[in-house]
């Protein structure tokens, strides 16, 4: 048990919290300040000012604010300010960990049993108590076949939920479940977000437009295609938080219009920002740019189910023909790093910062690419279809940029892709139907290898659009998810990744920065590399 990573990190975070509290108490500072002092962000804050309205521009689409039904990064960022999970994502500037949120204490009597002691006195925005009953109901809602939650798979192994006392729940799993900490966060996991039973039953299908949670802010208005308004939850459980009275979220679809609104001071922040505007925003003295390489990877997927890419040799040739440095510089404006495998830097316990020197993974080697191409089944020049869309996603609305850089690189090994820029709806339809030879994609906002490669590349899983299948890979990722022993997990993921990179259903491209833009007058923002914009600690100068 000494190597259980999430429990150890939990303890570390807790002790850090307590240490800070003691320090501040002795300095005579208030509780609010304790909570507001940002972990790792370090910007020296005097007592944060109370009140005020923060106006933000949202570029991404918002599908629903029902945490159990959303699949949009734009929604999750709002949801995380309205709801809480049992756990939350924490970041100390170097390392991502999972800290208690609605849970106060987390025990593991054995590898398959988790006992959560909840915070006392937490209330939903409608006044109902958030207790063991509410947690049980929420988790059961995610699992219920009637809801058809896209996050149900995250709780598939959950066998039973028992209420031990009004503030204690016990979760029993069929097998040890390493992904649990992520699944139980309110943000990227979404399955562990606790919703109000009464509000769900009252609103029915309309709950996504009238969400009721326990978070620092509550929804007060939603004007279609215009704005969403949040107001301070005075009963929020973290003492002294939040600082802001109101948050106005302007729904600006056009990124350049959002950037213009930012530059002219009409909004105080952007939920995300395309790469091409970053150099300009960095130069502006009134603007702070937050962004680090997050848990993501972009790639070119190749259709394993039909010729010509049903040939692994040809796929490998593609993987070695792409110069990632050029992609990083020209497509991502230097705001990314070349990817060798799918596992990204925030997965600190699995990512190898020296991977470039190990010879593992995929990288640019034209000679190797040419040699592989010479051995591929299909000889001579080929013209595969390559579908791209300009819809704005976490990968930054690249449009044809990646494809146009990759096409001439592949031409050097006799592959001349026909790039088709299509409407997002058509792209989704063709991707889901497997109607492509090559396609552009990025998987984003992941914090654990289990969510970054398992549902994407296991046989028959719904996100495996290229139809990749290797039983050895399936076994390796399954084995990795069924143990909480870190060394064993690491071994299985290394094996799985090596198989994946060699079979090359994808040519992995880059791990990207994801940006949050805020005006200098916005203080106390805690950056977390999981595409989140948490506002509970934010105040206005």
């Amino acid at each position: 048990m000494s190597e259980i990573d999430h429990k150890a990190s939990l303890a570390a975070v807790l002790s850090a919290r307590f240490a800070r509290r003691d320090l501040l108490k002795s300095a005579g500072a208030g509780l609010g300040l304790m909570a507001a002092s940002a972990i790792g962000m370090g910007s020296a804050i005097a007592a944060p000012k109370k009140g005020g309205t923060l106006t933000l521009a949202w570029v991404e689409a918002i599908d629903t604010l029902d945490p159990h039904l959303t699949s949009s990064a734009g929604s999750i960022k709002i949801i995380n300010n309205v709801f809480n999970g049992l756990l939350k994502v924490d970041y100390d500037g170097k390392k991502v960990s999972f800290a208690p949120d609605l849970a106060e204490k987390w025990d593991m009597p054995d590898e398959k049993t988790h006992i959560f002691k909840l915070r006392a006195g937490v209330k939903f925005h409608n006044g109902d108590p958030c207790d063991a009953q509410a947690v049980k109901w929420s988790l059961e809602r995610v699992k219920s076949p009637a809801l058809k939650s896209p996050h149900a798979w995250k709780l598939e192994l959950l066998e039973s939920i028992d209420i031990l006392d009004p503030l204690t729940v016990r979760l029993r799993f069929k097998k040890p479940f390493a992904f649990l900490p992520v699944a139980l966060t309110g943000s990227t996991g979404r399955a562990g977000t606790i919703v109000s039973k009464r509000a769900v039953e009252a609103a029915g299908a309309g709950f996504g437009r009238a969400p009721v949670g326990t978070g620092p802010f509550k929804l007060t208005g939603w004007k279609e295609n215009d704005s969403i308004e949040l107001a301070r939850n005075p009963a929020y459980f973290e003492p002294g938080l939040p600082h802001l009275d109101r948050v106005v979220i302007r729904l600006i679809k056009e990124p350049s219009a959002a950037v213009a609104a930012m530059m002219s001071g009409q909004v105080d922040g952007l939920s995300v920002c395309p790469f091409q505007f970053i150099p300009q925003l960095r130069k502006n003295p009134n603007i702070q740019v937050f962004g680090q390489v997050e848990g993501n990877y972009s790639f070119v997927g190749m259709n394993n189910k039909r010729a010509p890419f049903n040939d692994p040799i040809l796929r490998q040739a593609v993987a070695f023909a792409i110069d990632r440095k050029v992609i990083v510089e020209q497509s991502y404006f230097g705001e990314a790093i070349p990817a060798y495998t799918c596992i990204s830097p925030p997965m600190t316990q699995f990512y190898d910062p020296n991977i470039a020197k190990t010879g593992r993974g995929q990288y640019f080697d034209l000679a190797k690419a040419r040699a592989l191409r010479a051995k591929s089944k299909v000889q001579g020049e080929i013209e595969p279809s390559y579908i791209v869309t300009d819809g704005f996603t976490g990968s930054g609305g690249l449009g044809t940029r990646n494809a146009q850089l990759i096409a001439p690189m592949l031409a050097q090994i006799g592959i001349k892709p026909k790039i088709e820029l299509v409407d997002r709806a058509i792209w989704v339809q063709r991707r889901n139907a497997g109607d492509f030879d090559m396609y552009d994609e990025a998987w984003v906002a992941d914090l654990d290898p289990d969510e970054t490669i398992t549902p994407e590349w296991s046989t028959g899983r719904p996100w495996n659009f290229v139809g990749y299948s290797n039983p050895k890979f399936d076994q390796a990722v399954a084995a990795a998810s069924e143990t909480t022993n870190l060394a064993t997990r690491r071994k299985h993921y290394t094996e799985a990744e090596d198989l994946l990179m060699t079979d090359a259903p994808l040519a992995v491209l880059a791990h990207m920065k994801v940006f949050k833009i805020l005006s200098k007058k916005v203080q106390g923002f805690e950056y977390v590399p999981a595409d989140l914009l948490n506002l509970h600690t934010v105040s206005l100068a």
Partner: protein
Amino acid sequence: MKVAANSLELRASRLWQSLGAVAQTALVLLVVSGISFLFLKLSPGDPVALMLGSDFSRDSYDQLYRNLGLDRPWLQQYFHWLSRFVLGEWGSSYVSKQDIFELAVLQALPVTLTLAALSLLVALAVGIPLGVLAAIKRNSWMDILASAIAIGGNAFPSFYLGVVLIWIFSVAFGWFPSMGYVSPWSDPLGGLWHLALPALTLGAWYVGLIATVTRSSLLEVLEQPYMAAARARGEPEWRVIWVHGMRNVLMPLVTIIGLQLGGMLRGAVMTEVVFTLPGLGMMITNAVQTREYLVVQAGIMITALLFIAVNLLVDRTYTILDPRLRKK
């Protein structure tokens, strides 16, 4: 008694005319609804796949598909929609569950109408003087300048013009907001301030048209004997141009404005997206992207109705502008 009978006859014929107009309108709307429904169904893309994102399972897909009634035959879907549409039951959005009538008619339509009206005002205020100036100073440098402005405004895509105006007047000078809608009906100053750049953007496209028509029509009118007669009576030049001249320019002007309403609505789509105005254009753009069939359909129907209404209005205006037409 002869006169009374005549007026009765006239009234009856007007009634017939009106009934005819209503029947025509209904027929046009029916055809528009059928064609747009068919095109929406034929366009690739699938609302259910988009709603479920990447996370969907076959099961949830099928259920949602059924819930939205998309599994029924097209013709059945169409008539189901039509029978409810005429009763004002426009259904609710797949994603937001919002009532579409409320969204389209009560929220989006007023925004677009306000924007269009202001843009038209801008266009008339700039376009007519420009056209008059070009006509009376024909072939001078002023004529060339006016023509250049007119053609430039017409040629500059409203999308691009909007962005340029934002960067100059919002970002560089900070004089005007670049986004958001404030109703000028409830907050006149704030509303006009927020709509200034969008109205200028959309109006620019019309300026060229109005100036060109004003110039060419006025040139024709200037040759007419009644203009010479007015001058001979010793009326001042401004009166000759603006009263006798312009009165006769109004007819072609109204015609062209009515005919080009389609262009204006098209421009409104772009303008609303650039300036983040929650109007019909924005609504339709978003709905097309997510394949919200019912919302797109509602948007198309309102647009068609607007188009017909303006054309009827133009017909009525003729008889007001030219009393001679009333007798015919």
